[in-house]
């Protein structure tokens, strides 16, 4: 009961800080509009790729190389985004890049297709024009995706053929089956390449506005870990925490109250943001509000738990402000709130899995694209787990300091 008293007190202090509250609500909405508009076209809007001019030096004429060029780079779904200009020497490609006639140069080396057919990978050279790293990254991902899918297709085809051979099929039959199989699976490889960028799990593409609404929610809610932590540090510095501790209230109730205060504020902030983005800038948060609320609850638990860590491991409000602020920004960057995770190198993408905001953001975008409850079980468990573990660590450390 007293934990509720503490929680309501904390909530009322924060909600009455009009300036801070407006910042926590207005800023994410403004940033959603700016980033969503600026990066329109990067995600599942009118096209799924940034506008890119590719200078292509195709040294290899193997069918797989041709398929990559025609089926992926010149794919009709990417025609609004990618323009391919053929060049016929390395020197000409360098000149295109140097003179900025192309954003990205791609060299398909000799025997690239042959090697690919044998399940091996010959590296594709990608040249980048100044300031076009984003586009280069995109082309690199298209290429890697094609290579991976083709390798998988080739390996599968070989396995099927070897199985058929063991059943006594003739060489002619096997050749015919193999050609058909490779052709069909190859089409799959082309198809996959078109949504290598920010592939949604559901049926619907997620627009940049939707993505950044989710991203800003994940980032700005994460700031509550710092605000909640600072609130405990402030109580410690102003001796109100000591005063609470000499009242007939046990420490668990006090800390639960602090946790609930942050949780309550985070939830209210999210609900206001959800309503504002939905009604003011028409962000579609998906067709299942229950899923969104469940992820918001789990993420708020996570954030509230992290506030305990901030309070337990930082000594002053000033440290929490500077270090905590920095930490939130790093986590936001890693979690995809600033730049979509899909453009990160693979290692960073793996690292991003440890950030709660990354799980929240991915879950929000997945719900927007229309996901199932089953696919949300893992993110829900992870977010709640982070919250519980952080609370336990924070409380133990806090008890140690208090003693």
């Amino acid at each position, binding site marked *: 009961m007293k934990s509720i008293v503490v929680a309501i007190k904390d909530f009322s202090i924060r909600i009455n800080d009009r300036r801070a509250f407006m910042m926590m609500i207005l800023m994410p909405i403004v940033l959603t509009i700016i980033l969503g508009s600026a990066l329109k076209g990067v995600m599942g809007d009118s096209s799924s790729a940034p506008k890119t001019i590719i200078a292509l030096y195709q040294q290899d004429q193997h069918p797989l190389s041709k398929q990559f060029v025609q089926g992926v780079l010149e794919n009709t779904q990417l025609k609004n985004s990618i323009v391919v200009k053929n060049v016929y020497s390395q020197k000409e490609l360098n000149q295109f890049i140097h003179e900025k006639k192309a954003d990205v140069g791609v060299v398909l080396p000799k025997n690239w297709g042959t090697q690919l057919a044998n399940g091996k990978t010959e590296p594709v050279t990608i040249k980048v024009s100044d300031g076009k790293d984003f586009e280069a990254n995109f082309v690199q991902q298209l290429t890697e995706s094609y290579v991976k899918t083709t390798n998988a297709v080739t390996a599968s085809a070989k396995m099927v053929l070897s199985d058929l051979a063991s059943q006594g099929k003739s060489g002619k039959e096997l050749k015919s089956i193999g050609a058909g199989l490779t052709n069909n699976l190859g089409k799959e490889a082309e198809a996959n390449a078109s949504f290598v960028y920010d592939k949604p799990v559901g049926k619907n593409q997620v627009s940049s506005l939707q993505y950044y609404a989710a991203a800003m929610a994940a980032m700005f809610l994460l700031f509550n870990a710092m605000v909640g932590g600072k609130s405990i540090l402030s109580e410690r510095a102003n001796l109100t925490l000591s*005063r609470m501790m000499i009242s007939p209230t046990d420490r668990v109730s006090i800390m639960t109250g602090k946790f609930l205060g942050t949780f309550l504020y985070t939830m209210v902030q999210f609900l206001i943001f959800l309503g504002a983005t939905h009604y003011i800038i028409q962000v579609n948060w998906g067709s299942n509000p229950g899923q969104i609320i469940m992820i918001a609850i789990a993420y708020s638990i996570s954030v509230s738990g992290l506030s305990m860590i901030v309070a337990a491991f930082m000594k002053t409000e000033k440290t929490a402000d500077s270090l905590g602020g920095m930490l939130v920004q790093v986590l936001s960057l890693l979690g995809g709130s600033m730049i979509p995770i899909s453009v990160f190198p693979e290692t960073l993408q793996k690292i991003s899995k440890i950030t709660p905001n990354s799980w929240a953001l991915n879950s929000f975008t997945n719900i927007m694209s229309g996901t199932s409850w089953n696919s949300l079980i893992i993110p829900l468990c992870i977010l709640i787990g982070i919250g519980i573990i952080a609370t336990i660590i924070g409380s133990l450390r806090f008890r140690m300091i208090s003693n």
Partner: protein
Amino acid sequence: MLSISNIKKSFGHHQVVNDVTFEVQKGEAFGLLGPNGAGKSTTISMICGLIPYDEGDIQVDGLSVQKKPMKIREKIGVVPQDIALYPTMSALDNLVFWGKMYGITGRRAKQRAFEVLEIVGLTDRAKDKIETFSGGMKRRINIGAALMHNPELLIMDEPTVGIDPQSRNHILETVKRLNEEGMTIIYTSHYMEEVEYLCKRIGIIDHGKLIAIGDKTELCNRLAGGHVLELIVDNPNVDLLVNLENIEGVENTNGKEDGTIEIMLSDKKNILPEIISLCGTHDISIQTIQIKEPNLESLFLQLTGRTLRD
């Protein structure tokens, strides 16, 4: 009401409270005097159960602080040395919150908050935020928060530090009235006159030890001679102080930067001519001479060799 027996507390190798024993009766106002770092606040923190003691025992109404902390906390109200309030909340909301922390719920909390505002004389500022208050008003609400649950024992840790005389008088009057109505008070302060005004019994604590305890008259009678001669001189020097202490009948001296020299006399024989002559020898001219009645300040000086505010 309160019984402290041989309590000890160390932080690392530093013994902060060393074998302190005293009792406070129900309805009594007890003063705890001592300079900064003497161990007063640590003793208070141990009474409240905020800091555990290493040895000994503290009992409130027969209950051990370490065994029944929650029961005891319901009986105690603590006014901390610093303002422990929420500056962005109103005076009323602060009081209601602290009332709820002591188990007062619903309308009763608000009703009691208004009663307390009346006691501390700030009813007209009920809805104003604490951050808009003067230092004295904040101190009064700080006291009010400790009164919300109408405690049997009110512990006040230097409640008048840094406030204007008007607020100080108001606080002293309020505490006096609460004590007269039956509330047991433990009052710690640097200000001797506050303790003398409020408390019948006084304990003097220094370097973690209780060096004297008793009522004011008893304590002053302990002074050898008891009189203090205060000189205000031009350019005092260390040699003069040393030579003054060599005069028969001078117990102790204390020189201050402003030229004041306090001389503790061990007997009442007239040694004034000798002192004046010594000042002349040191080529020091005397501006004023005053003989003070024995008081707690002089007792403290005699017992510790320093003043309370050193």
